[in-house]
């Protein structure tokens, strides 16, 4: 057995181990649910629907101010967790920030029940019975929140319940500071 053949075969060890190690550890840092949205950097898709109160609402009315578009449902547990944060944000930035809710795969009664239990912040919540608004926003499941700047461009899409950290960070990007 020649020395060259003898040493060459040891290459097999790092050749296999290094990619496997890399894959396993990068995989661990990944959240399979955190999918980047293709809408970031583009204008918010236009939508119009009826609110829970029965009024007509159009996304045009969001122009000129930063906005939060929050997709939620009454059957969604993480939505309960993030709701107080949204209420606080609405109070803290009243007049500077617009909030809009999109009700996802839910009944009007269910949605109203949620607001009665956890607090109605007073912002419009749109019903989307055909699911078209959810498709246009590329929603994978509630809760999701879109951060839109005053020019109507989507700056960030958060998947999962909002945290204080993300909220503060992204609102700053929209030009709103504590």
């Amino acid at each position, binding site marked *: 057995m020649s020395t060259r053949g003898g040493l060459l075969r040891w290459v097999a060890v790092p050749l296999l181990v290094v990619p496997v190690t890399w894959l396993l550890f990068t995989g661990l840092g990944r959240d399979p649910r955190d999918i980047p949205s293709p809408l970031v950097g583009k204008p918010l898709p236009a939508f119009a629907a009826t609110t829970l109160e029965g009024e007509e609402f159009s996304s045009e009315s969001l122009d000129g101010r930063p906005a939060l578009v929050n997709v939620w449902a009454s059957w969604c547990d993480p939505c309960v967790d993030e709701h107080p944060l949204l209420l606080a944000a609405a109070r803290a930035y009243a007049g500077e920030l617009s909030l809009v809710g999109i009700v996802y795969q839910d009944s009007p009664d269910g949605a109203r029940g949620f607001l009665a239990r956890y607090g109605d912040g007073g912002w419009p919540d749109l019903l989307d019975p*055909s699911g078209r608004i959810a498709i*246009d926003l590329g929603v994978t499941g509630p809760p999701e929140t879109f951060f839109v700047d005053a020019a109507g461009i989507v700056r960030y899409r958060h998947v999962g319940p909002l945290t204080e950290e993300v909220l503060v960070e992204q609102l700053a990007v929209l030009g709103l500071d504590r």
Partner: protein
Amino acid sequence: MRSLALPIAAAALLALVAVAALQLVVPREPPTAAERAHTIAAELRCPDCQALSVAESRTAAAAAIRAEIAEQLAAGRSAAEIRQHFVARYGDWILLSPTDPLAWWLPALALLAGAALFGWWWIRGRRSSMTAPPRAITDADRRRVRDAAEALDD
């Protein structure tokens, strides 16, 4: 009879392949709108399921997407345009099959490489093994025989 069997079988299968090929070449009815919608839906991933296509999934989100596909087809869009419509909203992730050609070439190349390796190994093995001289029996060999015999009492 046996000497004819293989040629007969081969001829029969070739004839079948020819007929099948003819069937493919002869124009068949264009797919209905429902069939076209189903084909497109089968290529899209259901956004709130694990690994199911929009065609298979029974969630409300999938139903909404199927309705959207039907509407787009009725408006005259092509399959590629409809797929792009959803990619623009959800990202590349909504397509069940990767568009990157690498995803298709890599496995094919790997299989070819594997087959080439197998061929090279085989030929090399045949060439070299003929020249190895037998070696003398040692005590280690006798021990191995004893152990193997014990193990065979399984």
